[in-house]
């Protein structure tokens, strides 16, 4: 697996953007198929995909970008068939709803000679993709755990809120637990709140009733963290030194920028990765920049020093 840093990526994109059409005036179609905005993170994906589409159309007049959102895996399969039939895309950037169900349909698109970029959730058969762009969920958990361990001096009691039972959630939790191994930090409890702010509020209230002393809370998504913070404030508990999330939601990045003592960091699993994928695909279509491979965006800590870089005030997430 090849790891590229953010700066390498940006320079690739910059070169691609700077290189004009290189004499190819042939009209090309980039189809983008993503889940519809049903919650915060996918809302961010849609926002960044639309922004990238506008920017790419501007930079490369001969690339037509078609962004299509689907509310379910079945709908996404239908959308792929429609895209193929109506637009015959030269490249497809897809964030699959589910790996198993989308693998076959994407393979059909690939067989027609389309360049395939897969984002976030992989397909069951990785040979189908030409390019894979994703975040590092293990690092999301591990980087948070390492920071927490350092701040707590290697000991304390923490509670964890899980998302929905999926690979993404499992990896984050695994990264977190593995990083805490060998320390004296004790995970008191771990339950599902389904990446839902209301359920996180309820669950945190229950945790607070169950444990009289908690040093820190980790909700593996910032949407849940907002519910957690509300429950802690209501209970007036001051034993909780840190309440941390992940994903780099705009509200939480604001707290980090403001130097909030309870939420001084977040870790990005940025919905803007769709933009990275679309830029690279455009580079491949037009800049003669070969981009085949795997790009795993790291999950560095968002701190007061670098928060500006992860702050998208207009994004819905």
């Amino acid at each position, binding site marked *: 697996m090849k790891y590229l840093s953010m700066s390498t990526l940006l320079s690739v994109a910059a070169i691609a953007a700077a290189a004009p059409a290189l004499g190819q005036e042939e009209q090309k179609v980039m189809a983008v198929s993503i889940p*519809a905005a*049903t*919650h*915060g993170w*996918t809302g*961010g994906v849609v926002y960044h995909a639309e922004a990238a589409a506008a920017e790419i159309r501007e930079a490369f007049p001969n690339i037509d970008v078609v962004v299509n959102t689907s509310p379910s895996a079945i709908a996404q399969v239908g959308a792929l068939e429609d895209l193929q039939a109506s637009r015959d895309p030269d490249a497809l950037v897809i964030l699959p709803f589910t790996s198993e169900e989308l693998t076959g349909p994407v393979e059909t698109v690939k067989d027609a000679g389309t360049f395939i970029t897969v984002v976030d959730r992989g397909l069951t058969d990785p040979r189908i993709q030409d390019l894979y762009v994703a975040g590092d969920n293990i690092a999301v958990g591990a980087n948070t755990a390492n920071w927490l361990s350092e701040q707590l001096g290697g000991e304390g009691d923490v509670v964890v809120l*899980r998302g929905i039972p999926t690979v993404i959630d499992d990896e984050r939790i695994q990264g977190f637990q593995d990083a805490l191994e060998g320390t004296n930090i004790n995970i008191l409890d771990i339950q599902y709140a389904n990446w839902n702010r209301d359920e996180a509020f309820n669950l945190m209230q229950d945790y607070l009733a169950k444990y009289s002393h908690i040093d820190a809370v980790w909700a593996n998504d910032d*949407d849940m963290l907002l519910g957690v913070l*509300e429950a802690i404030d209501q209970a007036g508990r001051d034993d909780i030194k840190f309440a941390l999330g992940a994903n780099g939601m705009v509200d939480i990045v604001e707290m980090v920028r403001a130097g909030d003592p309870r939420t001084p960091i977040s870790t990005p699993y940025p919905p803007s990765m769709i933009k990275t994928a679309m830029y690279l695909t455009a580079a491949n279509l037009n800049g003669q920049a070969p981009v085949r491979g795997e790009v795993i965006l790291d999950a560095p800590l968002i701190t007061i020093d670098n928060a500006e870089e992860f702050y998208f005030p207009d994004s*819905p997430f």
Partner: protein
Amino acid sequence: MGVLINPDFLSATNVSNVLTRSTFVAIIAVGATFVISSGGLDLSVGAMTAFVAGIMIMFMNALVPSLEANAIIAGIGLVICVGALCGLFNGLIVTIGRIEPFIVTLGTMGIFRAFITFMSNGGTIPIDRSLRDPFRPIYFGEVLGIPIPIVICAIVAGIGAFILYKTKYGRRCAAVGANEEVARFSGISVARIRTTAFVIQGICVAIAAVCYVPRLGAATPTTGLLWELQVITAVVIGGTALRGGKGHIWGTIAGAVILEMIANLMVLSDFISEYLVAAVQGVIIIVAMLIQRFSRRS
């Protein structure tokens, strides 16, 4: 039994948390008791809560510059009207369009959910910062030591019980649910009774939204997700027959509290894998229904 699992279960804070949390579903379920006892069903309530909460927030935010904190009162007035209209919309399609309520509200569930997602761009609709403090007490405040949502819920249930048990409308509601033909031959306007039940449901949804918005200060596309199932479960646990004909308001309230209590106990207990929590909840609900069924027969 709860105390055996965890002594904190009966602590004042925990009991108050659980009761306060259960009020959203309880208030909506009061309306659902009318719809279900009149032989209908409303699957759109969860999405409708999110939609009317979103409308309320956008309206209040727009009024803040001119009305300041009074925007909250205007928002409450508006949301009750919008809720009633949503209910009227459901009711009219069911009665005038003569379509199964299950299908109509399945359709409007999708419509309301899409609207809130569109309004929020898939993200969050937060209330204006200046409204946060004046609005917070509606969820977090207390009257005589009782959390305000519980007071509101008790009032809604009291009015609901009065209408259902003591008024002509309430008796007709049950009559329509028990046997539509007989009700029609006795001169009852079935369409009007059913439509009114959906309007009552819409108003209850709006009242629940008023309690909900100050809790987290925002509406999102995941607001009220799957509440329709919790509401129906609460109504049925409470002793109302799903096929209509009779309704029990206080049973419904108890059902909503029991549902929330089961969820709370699952978190407080340490015996069950987090993967199996939902299964245990399901088993408890089914066992509770079976006990109810057999104790009634004997």
